């Protein structure tokens, strides 16, 4: 990635403040005050000591020396530093939390309109995991990079003003520090980071898949020692490579940190020499000499936190770029805002053509017509297009040719809401929300009564009582439904779909994981419940044809 590309990727996230702007501004102000306290404390102390030492040379000047004012100043800066440091942390964190909540809402609203294919891309779960890591990386943009850089630059500006009013000839020294904070450090960080970064991303992904193979493939490896020896060796080599990359970037960070310290030290050291050699007439007085050198020395504290942030810059920019790439996609298929209402639960598919990619055509002139109220069993070999048909009917994908009508209306004319009201569907991958059982059912209908919940759970055979869930409807369901068995998760999904009371219900492998007897019972209860409404039951299993009005085999 080039620097300007990186900056372009970051720009929208710099300006997206989501109402946290005033908090961040206050945080910046407090950050500046903290640094002023810090610089002031050292600078004034140095000046005070020097002044006192000069005055102390003679008893008369010593008696006249006003030590109350500098003494009070020193105490003031000490308190300022302590108080503003604490408030700065509180305020910036408050702002950051607001910022990152806003970022998530913004991202969620964009992602909600994308199709599953746009959302997960080619790598499925890993893409989403990375997405979350990327947002975390962007969360750090303000508190770690922008605010410290700005407050450092502002304070250095102040130092420059002090220099300009005392020794104008040396104003370039603090200006140099400003350039260091705003330009040089980010640039150096970028240079150090952006070449290693792609290698690191690749190295980590590589190591991850190898480790995953070690653990998930253990079943096979445990029976064949030679294969394990090879896999183990490969994996450790990847690990060593990854560690070497980390070592490289760690070393760069250490060098950059050292270079920054040297740079600030050089400024102070140079100032000392230059101030001492100024021509006699313009020579700064003793106290100023000490104060200016001390001021420059104290600047180090403002710069050091910037080093790490600068090194993270390429990673943050890459994160911004990935988020933009996902969230910036226009939703496809595109939905109209308001469409007609379908008249019944019929489905007409004519000359359907669809392929996921050019190698694997799934449909080539497929026809299907389903009467309103008909119960249809769709059978077919695995990979025959059953699940693809669902994606097309729920309009997660648009066909490349042919037409689909539901209730007499072309699918593409329906708005999102009308289509969801028309078709209820359970896909092959079922998901449950982290929350209570009732929360999960309410996803189908926010105003659902408790009786209705219990009735539907009984229908799908998921009574909390029979499942041994003592908390009843308040039973907690873990992330993604991990605390449920596959069968339970599926039945919960069916319950939600039935609650939609849509004219058309589509269930993909609803009885997967059930034994034949339970399967037969589930079929009879669901078909009875959906009397007079259209049902598409998709299964690769045989033996239950009698329960349906019609059987269609696809993909053969």
């Amino acid at each position, binding site marked *: 990635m080039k620097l300007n590309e990186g900056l372009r990727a970051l720009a929208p996230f710099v300006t997206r403040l989501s109402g946290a702007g005033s908090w961040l501004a206050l945080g910046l102000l407090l950050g500046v005050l903290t640094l002023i306290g810090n610089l002031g404390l050292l600078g004034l102390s140095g000046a005070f000591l020097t002044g006192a030492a000069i005055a102390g040379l003679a008893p008369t000047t010593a008696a006249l020396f006003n030590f109350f004012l500098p003494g009070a100043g020193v105490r003031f800066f000490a308190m300022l530093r302590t108080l503003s440091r604490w408030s700065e942390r509180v305020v910036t964190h408050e702002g950051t939390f607001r910022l990152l909540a806003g970022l998530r809402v913004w991202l969620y609203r964009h992602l909600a309109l994308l199709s599953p294919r746009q959302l997960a891309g080619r790598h499925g779960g890993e893409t989403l995991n990375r997405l979350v890591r990327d947002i975390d990386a962007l969360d750090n943009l303000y508190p770690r990079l922008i605010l410290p850089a700005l407050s450092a630059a502002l304070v250095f500006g102040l130092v420059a003003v002090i220099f300009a009013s005392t020794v104008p000839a040396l104003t370039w020294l603090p200006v140099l520090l400003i350039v260091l904070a705003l330009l040089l450090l980010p640039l150096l960080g970028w240079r150090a980071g952006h070449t290693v970064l792609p290698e690191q991303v690749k190295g980590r992904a590589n190591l991850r898949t190898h480790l995953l193979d070690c653990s998930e493939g253990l079943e096979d490896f445990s029976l064949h020692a030679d294969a394990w020896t090879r896999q183990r060796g490969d994996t450790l080599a990847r690990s060593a490579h990854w560690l070497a990359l980390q070592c490289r970037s760690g070393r760069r960070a250490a060098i950059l940190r050292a270079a920054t310290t040297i740079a600030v030290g050089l400024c102070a050291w140079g100032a000392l020499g230059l101030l001492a050699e100024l021509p006699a007439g313009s020579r700064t007085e003793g106290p100023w000499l000490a104060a200016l050198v001390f001021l420059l020395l104290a600047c180090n504290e403002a710069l050091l936190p910037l080093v790490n942030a600068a090194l993270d810059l390429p990673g943050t920019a890459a994160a911004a770029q990935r988020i933009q790439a996902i969230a910036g996609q226009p939703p496809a298929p595109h939905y109209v805002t308001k469409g007609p209402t379908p008249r019944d639960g019929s489905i007409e598919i004519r000359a359907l053509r669809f392929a996921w990619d050019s190698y694997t055509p799934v449909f080539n002139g497929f026809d299907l017509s389903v009467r309103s109220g008909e119960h249809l069993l769709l059978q077919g070999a695995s*990979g025959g297009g059953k699940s693809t048909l669902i994606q097309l009917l729920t309009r997660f994908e648009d066909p490349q040719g042919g037409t689909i009508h539901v209730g007499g209306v072309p699918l593409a004319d329906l708005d999102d809401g009308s289509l969801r009201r028309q078709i209820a569907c359970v896909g092959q991958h079922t998901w449950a929300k982290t929350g209570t059982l009732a929360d999960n059912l309410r996803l189908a209908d926010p105003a659902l009564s408790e009786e209705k919940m219990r009735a539907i759970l009984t229908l799908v055979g998921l009574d909390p009582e029979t499942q041994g869930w003592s908390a009843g409807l308040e039973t907690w369901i873990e992330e993604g439904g991990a605390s449920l068995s596959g069968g339970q998760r599926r039945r919960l999904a069916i319950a939600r779909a039935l609650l939609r009371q849509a004219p058309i219900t589509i269930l993909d492998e609803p009885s997967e994981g059930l034994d*034949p007897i339970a399967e037969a019972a589930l079929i009879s209860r669901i078909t009875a419940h959906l009397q007079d409404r259209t049902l598409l039951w998709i299964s690769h299993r045989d033996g239950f044809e009698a329960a349906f009005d019609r059987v269609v085999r696809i993909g053969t």
Partner: protein
Amino acid sequence: MSSPALDTHSLALRQISRRFGHHPGWSTLIIVAGVLQTVATILFAALLAHVLHALIIVGQPFEQLESVWWQILACIVFRALAGIVREEGGIRISLAVRGAVRETLLDTLYRLGPAWRERQQAGSLSTALLEQVEALDGYFARYRPQQWFALLTPLMIIATLAPSSWAAAGILLLTAPLIPVFMILVGWGARQRQTEQLQALQRMSGHFLDLIRGLPTLRLLDAHLRLADEVEQVGDEFRWRTMRVLRLAFLSGAVLEFFASIAIALSAVYFGLTLLGRLDFGLYGHPLDLELALFALLLAPEFYQPLRDLGTHYHARAEALAAAGELQTILNAASLQPAGGDTRIGNGAPALTLDRITFGHREGETVLRKCSLQIQAGDAVAIRGPSGGGKTTLLRLLLGQLRAQEGDVLIGGLSIDDIDLVAWRERVAWMSQHPRLMADTLAANLRVARSDASEAELREALTFAGLGTWFAELRDGLATPLGEGGRQLSGGQLRRLALARVRLRRADVLLLDEPTASLDAETEEAVIERIAELRRGRTLVLLTHRAAPLRIVDRVLDLENGRLCAPRDEAEDMTKHTNAWIAA
């Protein structure tokens, strides 16, 4: 966070440190570099104070001071270079620790075997192997070295100041006994902050990820837009809850900051007043000059700097603590496998016997109850039963991947406790219920079954499993990448690939776990036909809940309530019914 959990975690981290963290060479380097760094800092302060004193008070011309001035530069550079060396030492130790921990984890994983792995939460192992090992980095690279200097550096500074001014040393010393208190305070504050902030972030990310994963489902329920409000609400709630804790936690940092500021302010005021002649103590009767005053002033902030650094590295410790707990659980896990012996079983297909086996995965649970099974050499047996009923457990017992609580497992007449388990497993072909692709080439995916198989043998196995036409269309042939980042296979193709793996094994025993699950009737037929071919001259145990595979076995047994028994009639009727349907 409750303290017992913390204690087990710190114990785990200590164990990991003791076992993997011993690198005397690098540790010495870190200490030497760190001490030299402090020496350079002290020298720098002394030289700077000297030059300022000479310029301002003595009025010496700068030309006479130029050599000292250059020495200051040397100190600045040397100090920074020592810092690089110090960090390098930390990086190297962390590297060595992470490499060794990962290697040990892999070996532990292999020793514990697939039956143990199966009990772990999905994904938790690869997280341990990657993320949690990496989480040790900050602790070993930065926190642990910094711990030494949080004590060493202040001591060195006190030791430098005390001979010239006990008052200056006293101002710092006044707060020095508090340093351990500070360390605890900093630790407490940082821990609160860390756990609270991290948890809030993780929960927020978890909630967000959960919803994003569920988006297709939410969209079908038309709930996807409604839940944007929930995202906002969750964000607000976490902010509110976290900030309540953070406001307090930041106080610990503020206290440290306060003492550091006070030390500087007090030093300045004390020396200022002494210079003006208004105070006269603490200097062993010597007169005070600017040089000493500035020297002490410059060292005051350095006294506290290592402690403040420790605070910023504290999150590394919190991360390592959390990771260490999980890692140590794996490293200390007890094996579920029998130890085995060194007797090799005879050539040819062995007889397999389970003799009154009782087995439960955990205390109080019984999966198998005095369960017996007798399979003659070369026999084929199918076992049916409900999922979760212990069918796979039977196979694991035969493989020596699980140890029965009671009863004997005999392979070819020898007890499993006496035979060489590695050699025995090499003679078994196993088809798992969920065959899996590795992210590697087709050839590597096949050589998992036999590492020395020739390319011709691989091709033959593919043809045998019915993947011949599919293979012929692959442009890259055996080098075609499969799995993540490569070509994916359909369920049926994957099952056939597993069949090709079975074909490649030099096996005398076939253990097949649901070899036709979730296949359509046509593919199922093809797979069964191949298994029928493979079973000749081998002992076969086949687990299934489907009817079709039953026709190629000699005997069918039902696993019910932890015991094997002959099938009941009703079930057989069903088999006939299904068979009849398939025939029609």
